[in-house]
């Protein structure tokens, strides 16, 4: 997976989701688990005949709960915002650590 994804500054969500439509089997556990309720089930069927989870496109907090309840190894990838200070000191790693510990509590 890519190291990080740059977004326009207008995107202010703390998190962002990517769902692999080939891997998802549409069990719906992530939809149930998502605290801000930003995941829905697709109307269309995928290549294998499953409806799949889809990200609403906004509102993700990057908590990672959906990833943890998902039974598929790589169906969900959770991105979390890394705030870079103007001074340039990157806190990327610290933030990822924080996100993991947050999600697992």
């Amino acid at each position, binding site marked *: *997976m*890519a*190291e*990080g*994804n*740059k*977004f326009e*500054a207008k*995107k*202010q969500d703390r*998190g*962002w989701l990517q769902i*692999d439509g*080939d*891997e998802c*089997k*549409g*069990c*719906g*556990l992530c939809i*149930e*688990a998502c605290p801000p309720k930003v995941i829905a089930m697709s109307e269309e069927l995928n290549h*294998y005949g*499953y409806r799949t989870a889809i990200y609403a496109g906004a509102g993700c907090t*990057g908590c*990672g*709960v959906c*990833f*943890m*309840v*998902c*039974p*598929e*190894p*790589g169906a*969900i*990838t*959770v*991105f*979390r*915002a*890394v*705030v*870079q*200070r*103007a*001074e340039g000191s990157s806190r*990327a790693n610290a*933030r*990822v650590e924080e*996100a*993991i510990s947050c*999600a*697992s*509590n």
Partner: protein
Amino acid sequence: MSSEVVQEYAVAQGRAKSFYTRYERKDELQRQTHYCPGCGHGVVHKMLARAIDELGVQDRTILVGPVGCSVFTYYYFDVGNIQAAHGRAPAVATAMKRSRPESIVISYQGDGDLSAIGTAEILHAANRGENISVIFVNNAIYSMTGGQAAPTTLIGQKSTTTPEGRRAATEGYPLHVSELLATLEAPVYIERVALGDNKQIAQATRAIRRAVENQARGLGFSLVEVLSPCPTIWKMNPVEAQHWVRDVMEKTFPLGVFRDHTREAAPRPAPPPAPALDEIPRLLGVAEQDLPANHGRALARDKQIDLQVRIAGFGGQGVLLIGEVLAEAGLDAGLEVSWLPSYGPEMRSGTSNCHVRLSSQPVDSPLVAVPSVLVAMNEPSLRKFDLTVRRGGWVIYNGDAFPADCMREGVHVLALPFTRLADELGDPRVSNMVMLGALLEIDGVLPQASVDAALRRLVKNPRWIALDERALARGRELFKESLRQEGAEAMGGGMK
């Protein structure tokens, strides 16, 4: 906040490095696991992969897969993989850990595998405190085979084999594996977790990591039991199944830590390394210098030999030893040999017999159904095997007189009171060697040097070797004498 100018996104949660990105499964399905939607196995797999990643042990992890739905762990985990026979994963894991102590060995098992057919293996691995991690995925039913009751099936739970629901009176109570193993002294860490909701899943993630970490720290046996949903067999949708774990299963299988000695446990000393392969002959006393010297390599090449011997008697008469000496001498002479003992459970006074084959060709079967020589050390053995001896073959019988009704045309007989003759040599117990001496003389293929070498390998006590050698020589003599007598009688007969 004014100084935060650029927002960038980094992966917080994604596919663990310990998973393959493509699975070497059937063509279409290389991007998907074989698990049903909502299966707990996928979730546990992810926890395990994450623990392996976080602890940095991927390149030294060996995952032992079970029989059950999770049989295909090797498709998914990019680690060393072994697939064990049903229930035997802890035994296989024990062997792996002991022979490769530096590796992280994880036994991944379901409840049908671990708590039914594999009960003995898990119990003893835990009792030995093997330094392995066991992930026990409990969904209270046999799922792969279509939903039969397991030892863990809940009271009242319907399955194909308990259509009215499990009843304690007929099927017993659900087996509480974690509690059971926590009665043992050796285990270091035993916890039951569940996949019933977000919080439980987070706790399960921590528990699985601890189980692997304990091993990395060398502490000993860890087991994490995971209550896991099976939507397909439970006939629920994935969300209902998840709730059923939390609301129903957990009542029978309470969550919690049943054993935690991780603080006080000192790292277990590594077991002494197994001896190197080339050291083993020396340890067993069969090193090259102890082995016989092959006195008869040449002999095997130019002669067609197929000696089939049956030796029978009471246990304790040395029946099996005759066979061993014969086979060992054959080996020394460069022949193909087999020795097959057959005896009752008694060490003394039961009946005992053995099959020996010596051949210049590879031996097709170690069974000797039609012997060319029968050595009968008593009358019951004679009566049992007499009729099997082939025409032109020999019967060597230990007794004063050969029973007249056992006489058969075309079968040679040497009947002598071998026990008494052995007693005259100094010990009645060497009657077997006297009979062997006679047998060697009949056949005449084995060089004396090979027989001596065999005797020295099998008989450790020098006092007995000397006596055995005299007994063998006496046997050879007795056979030659009997031939001379026969010849004289035949001659006498001709004179009449």
